[in-house]
């Protein structure tokens, strides 16, 4: 890898995006499909879980918080192995025939992202709860309604939490390469394609794909932030 290759990569990346190469579009599409689906499922689990942990007072609450935070450090390759053993033919759910499918990749990324969503939203909701707790108590709001109200009021902060989860999902390679198998036209995503080009020694092309991945992440983040700004304008207008 030399300086020449480095600049070559930027040209290649621009060419790739401008040419809208069909194979590349397929890979980008699958990356987004897998990671966004995993993000939505993780959010459905993680937001309520995080909110509950942030609001309710119960013994061992501190331990739960530590556990949730620690699970954010789950190495993707370990999650990949766990999901592999779950869906392998010799594993408990082998009969589902999900190994080496996009669904297995979604499951793996969901396992990775849920702790991030839960742990970060727990912190957001706990902070918010300091302001709200008294009011909720005086109006004797039931806990379910309190969770809903706080998730809604914290929605702009939680959007950033979701983006953190998305970042983890779209960027990881360790889990999806094990459970997806990097199968051409079926389970190949951006990160596994980058790993493959690296193992072919085509470092400039690999880096070009990396640049494209960054551009996708930028676009998603920009779109969400744009949405957020519009929503806020309406909310406070």
């Amino acid at each position: 890898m030399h300086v020449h290759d480095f600049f070559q990569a930027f040209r290649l990346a621009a060419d790739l995006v401008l040419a809208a190469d069909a194979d590349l579009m397929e890979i980008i599409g699958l990356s987004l499909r897998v990671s966004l689906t995993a993000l939505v499922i993780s959010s459905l689990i993680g937001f309520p879980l995080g909110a509950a942990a942030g609001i309710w007072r119960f013994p061992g609450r501190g331990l739960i918080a530590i556990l949730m935070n620690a699970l954010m450090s789950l190495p993707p390759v370990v999650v990949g192995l766990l999901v592999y053993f779950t869906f392998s033919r010799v594993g408990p759910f082998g009969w589902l025939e999900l190994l080496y499918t996009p669904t297995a990749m979604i499951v793996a990324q969901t396992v990775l992202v849920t702790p991030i969503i839960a742990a970060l939203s727990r912190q957001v909701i706990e902070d918010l709860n300091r302001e709200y707790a008294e009011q909720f108590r005086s109006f004797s709001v039931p806990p379910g309604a309190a969770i809903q109200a706080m998730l809604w009021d914290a929605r702009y902060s939680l959007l950033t939490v979701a983006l953190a989860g998305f970042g983890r999902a779209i960027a990881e390679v360790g889990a999806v390469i094990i459970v997806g198998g990097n199968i051409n036209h079926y389970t190949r995503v951006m990160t596994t394609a980058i790993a493959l080009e690296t193992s072919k020694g085509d470092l400039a092309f690999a880096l070009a794909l990396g640049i494209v991945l960054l551009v996708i992440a930028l676009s998603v983040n920009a779109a969400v932030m744009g949405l957020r700004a519009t929503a806020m304008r309406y909310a406070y207008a």
Partner: protein
Amino acid sequence: MRMISVLASLAMLWLAQGMQNANADDNFIVLQSTTSTKNSGLYEHILPNFTEQTGIEVRVVAVGTGQALQNARNGDGDVLLVHSKTDEEAFVAEGYGVKRLDVMYNDFVLIGPEGDPAKVAGQTSPAEALGRIAKAGVPFASRGDNSGTHKKELLLWHSAGVDPKEHSGQWYREMGSGMGPTINAAVEMGAYTLTDRGTWISFKNKGRHRIVLEGDTGLFNQYAVIRISPEKHPHVRTKLAQTFIDWLVGPDGQAAIGAYRMDGKQLFFPNASDARS
């Protein structure tokens, strides 16, 4: 809140559709494969022919031979294509595979940095060459991942009478990676390494490395195909797998393998018929 639930249901729909596709379209096999055949572009050259003729899609999972064997033992595939004869025979003997069939061969080559600091070029046998590398203490990048190439390399060290593990972390560098990343590292470290010729010819990041030893009979590299036994794993797609194997070792598959060229050079030499005659 409403927007979130709309998004959620959309995602579920998408996911459900993906699952449906996976189940409805059952005309495929999973091929557990060594990496060299994939990284060299061979599959992209031959598989479209097969799929066009039979309608069977071949999903290639390319991992090191060690991992491919293990995945196949777990029943996570229908066909195995690797290059480590002793392991393949054990795999069949243990009842995991039906039969081992030769498919094609190429050879291993020893590559090294410009200037050949261990003065390997001109040696006639791999044992002498490795002996010189060990004596000079010039870095050697080993796959270190139980792959077919790694096992071959360990055999060659054995024949050289050197136990490289004693020098692990010094001049002997166990990369624990695939062939490509190992060559990438060898190029950066100025190290020697053993690679199959197919991967080397198609490799893009050769730097100033070149072949320093080739052509010895000890460097022969045979690839074989094995159908995974339905007796151990009743779910395997026996019929589709057999169709694929018949094609691969038959005239069409063999011709497709022989026709594959990279930079005008042939990477794999079909030899299924030799074994059967």
